[in-house]
């Protein structure tokens, strides 16, 4: 790197307007990152409040109405404001063009618009919070949602708007992957994170429009009583559930596929080993994305849908597990005959493998229709989806954050604290959510502000560990932020882990404003640890 070593996208150009109006994907990614983290903390704080209320059966920490509003906001914020838009929006934006050797995403202006649409939608959500909340659950089932006097309209309108942001991001990423790759970077040489984002984007553009129209119909149902979803007007509430889950089941793969991508990057790098079964991992991404569209009815096993569709949906549900299993086993085999370093990202990645496998396997329990009838809407489901979303996506997100932090900022965090937090998250997480499987099996329904004494022991236990979990996450984030201080002496160098993907090998850390100082030339495959050695620049 030459004398303009210190010209990078963070300091060039300068000024607040240069950030707010930037077309640079990296800066847009950072804006997503910070807004996402803020919403995560808000959602997490709400969760801790809920756990406090649930610590003992007769607790009167908050009223029923407040509790109902809290869990709805918790779910809606975590899903619609954080993991769906912010993770692809943040890590995807920062990394995708770098990984394919492009100067930017295909439509930079659309990218910025997408961020502002997201912010605009988020304003509605914030309005909902300060205006007294909304109490329907993040699923907005009719006819309760058409009758509730809480802020259903602002919240659903916010979700509708954020949907557009999600669509535009997806569209942009797909066009980027198809059209902006550097010559020589063929499909089978793409980093797996790019494959994952590609699959995610496909789901985003195909499923999200249906969410948009569902929210429109819901709002119209409230204002005009069109009667499509309202049984009192000749409509059918189960049809609403079809509409909602046609989006929201595929949406869980919008949440998890980027996480799979992150793990597919981190394990080879930190094991210094060629990834096992590259093509299987790439194709399993696409098949998960596709099969994910055929199983939404497994959320409706007690709704009264026809027996025929119960059986069909149950049958197809199991098949999502098979490509996912292929990924899990491939990641494990990747470590075989490698050089595994227990860095912070790797610790997160290993705990991802453990937690996500539990979460995924419990999904199979739920897919068995006879068993789901007992488990539906109990804490077993709550535990399942926290294992996959928090134990899967959030942990992978933290892994990715720690992995690409030196890339994005050129600064290193305190690795000891970071690794300790990773352990704390792992332990606190299991302590919080494992008891919830038992609660669910024993019949504890979800969305309950109070409960009967028989469940109190496990709830107390869960609440206790949730504070450890919250604290660990909080410190982990503080630790990252602290590394950004001016006089941070820890220097990661430009390729701290000795990785082989283009974002590490072809540009400085943090990257040049136009990504690469000169047009990049594709040299080596992303996982050629059997052919190329790059010494890690991070000193122990």
């Amino acid at each position, binding site marked *: 790197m030459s004398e303009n070593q210190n010209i990078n996208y963070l300091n060039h150009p300068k000024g607040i307007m240069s950030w707010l109006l930037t077309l640079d994907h990296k800066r847009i990614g950072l804006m997503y990152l910070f807004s996402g983290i803020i919403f995560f903390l808000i959602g997490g704080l709400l969760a801790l409040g809920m756990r406090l209320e649930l610590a003992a059966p007769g607790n009167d920490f908050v009223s029923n109405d407040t509790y109902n509003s809290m869990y709805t906001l918790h779910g809606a914020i975590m899903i619609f404001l954080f993991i769906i838009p912010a993770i692809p929006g943040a890590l995807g934006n920062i990394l995708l063009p770098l990984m394919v050797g492009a100067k930017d995403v295909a439509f930079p202006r659309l990218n910025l618009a997408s961020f502002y649409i997201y912010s605009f939608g988020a304003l509605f959500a914030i309005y909902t919070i300060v205006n007294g909340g909304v109490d329907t659950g993040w699923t907005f089932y009719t006819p309760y949602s058409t009758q509730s006097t809480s802020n259903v309209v602002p919240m659903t309108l916010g979700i509708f708007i954020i949907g557009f942001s999600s669509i535009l991001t997806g569209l942009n990423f797909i066009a980027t992957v198809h059209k902006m790759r550097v010559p020589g970077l063929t499909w089978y040489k793409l980093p797996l994170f790019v494959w994952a984002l590609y699959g995610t984007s496909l789901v985003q553009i195909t499923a999200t429009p249906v969410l948009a129209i569902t929210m429109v119909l819901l709002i119209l149902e409230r204002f005009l009583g069109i009667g499509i979803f309202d049984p009192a007007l000749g409509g059918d509430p189960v049809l609403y559930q079809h*509409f909602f889950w046609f989006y929201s089941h595929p949406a869980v793969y919008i949440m998890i596929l980027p996480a799979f991508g992150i793990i597919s990057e981190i394990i080879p790098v930190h094991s210094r080993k060629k990834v096992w079964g590259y093509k299987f991992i790439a194709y399993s991404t696409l098949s998960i994305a596709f099969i994910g569209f055929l199983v939404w009815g497994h959320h409706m096993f007690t709704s009264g849908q026809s027996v025929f569709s119960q059986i069909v949906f149950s049958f197809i549900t199991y098949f999502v597990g098979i490509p996912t299993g292929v990924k899990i086993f491939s990641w494990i085999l990747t470590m075989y005959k490698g050089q595994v370093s227990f860095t912070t990202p790797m610790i997160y990645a290993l705990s991802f493998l453990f937690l996500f496998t539990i979460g995924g396997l419990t999904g199979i329990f739920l897919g068995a229709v006879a068993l789901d009838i007992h488990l539906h809407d109990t804490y077993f489901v709550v535990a399942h989806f926290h294992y996959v979303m928090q134990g899967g996506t959030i942990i992978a997100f933290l892994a990715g954050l720690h992995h690409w932090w030196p890339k994005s900022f050129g600064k290193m965090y305190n690795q000891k604290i970071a690794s300790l937090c990773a352990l704390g998250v792992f332990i606190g997480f299991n302590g919080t959510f494992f008891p919830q499987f038992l609660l669910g099996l024993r019949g504890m329904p979800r969305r309950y502000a109070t409960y009967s004494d028989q469940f109190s022991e496990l709830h107390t236990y869960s609440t206790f560990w949730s504070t450890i979990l919250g604290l660990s996450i909080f410190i982990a984030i503080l630790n990252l932020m602290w590394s950004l201080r001016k006089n941070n002496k820890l220097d990661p160098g430009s390729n701290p882990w000795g990785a082989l993907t283009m974002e590490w090998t072809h540009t400085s850390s943090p990257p040049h404003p*136009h990504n690469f100082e000169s047009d990049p030339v594709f040299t080596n495959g992303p996982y050629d640890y059997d052919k190329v050695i790059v010494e890690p620049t991070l000193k122990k």
Partner: protein
Amino acid sequence: MSHNSSSPDFLHHHFHDVDQQYQTSKFGMWAFILTEVLTFGGLFVAYTVYRSWYPEMFYDAHLLLDVNKGMLNTIVLISSSLTMALAIWAIQKKNKKLSLWMLVITWILALGFLGIKYLEYSHKFEVGQLPGIFYSYMGPEVVNIDNPHIFFGIYFIMTGLHGLHVAIGMGLIAWLIYLTKKDKLHSDYYTPMETVGIFWHLVDLIWIYLFPLFYLIG
């Protein structure tokens, strides 16, 4: 940024060449068309489900729609599709004047479509054939059928969303007229016209289904 100095001013810095930019824009537009199809798709699902539940009601209620106006609108939209296509053809052939005329005619036809829709809607508003609980028409054709308000709910939402697309299309076409006039579009660079054209044909395409589903077979 080396090659930027020698490249045309419509080429954005992050593309290698004009062809990459052109293909990318078109591909992006098609991905957008996919989202449009699925947005309307949700409504088609609602239509299909309710039609299968209330076949007689759909039949009786559809008789209340005005086939002539519907057919006229079909003709208007198809013609505007043709003029839109011709506008692109003209600019490819370096005939700026013809292209401008075609765009203007397209715009006028779109306005005509909305005018006819307005006439249809205002009649329905007058007699009370409204969506949902605002429905109040209990004329002889419907007294014995269940829930015609659902038919009109779906009718108004689908045609309304379609009408919204026509209006957006008019805005885009006006923008094209401006660009063409200012010579921002020419035979070497007419990507905006091509992508807006795709959008405009989609509007036609959706109407091709709405027309028989509502006006002809109910």
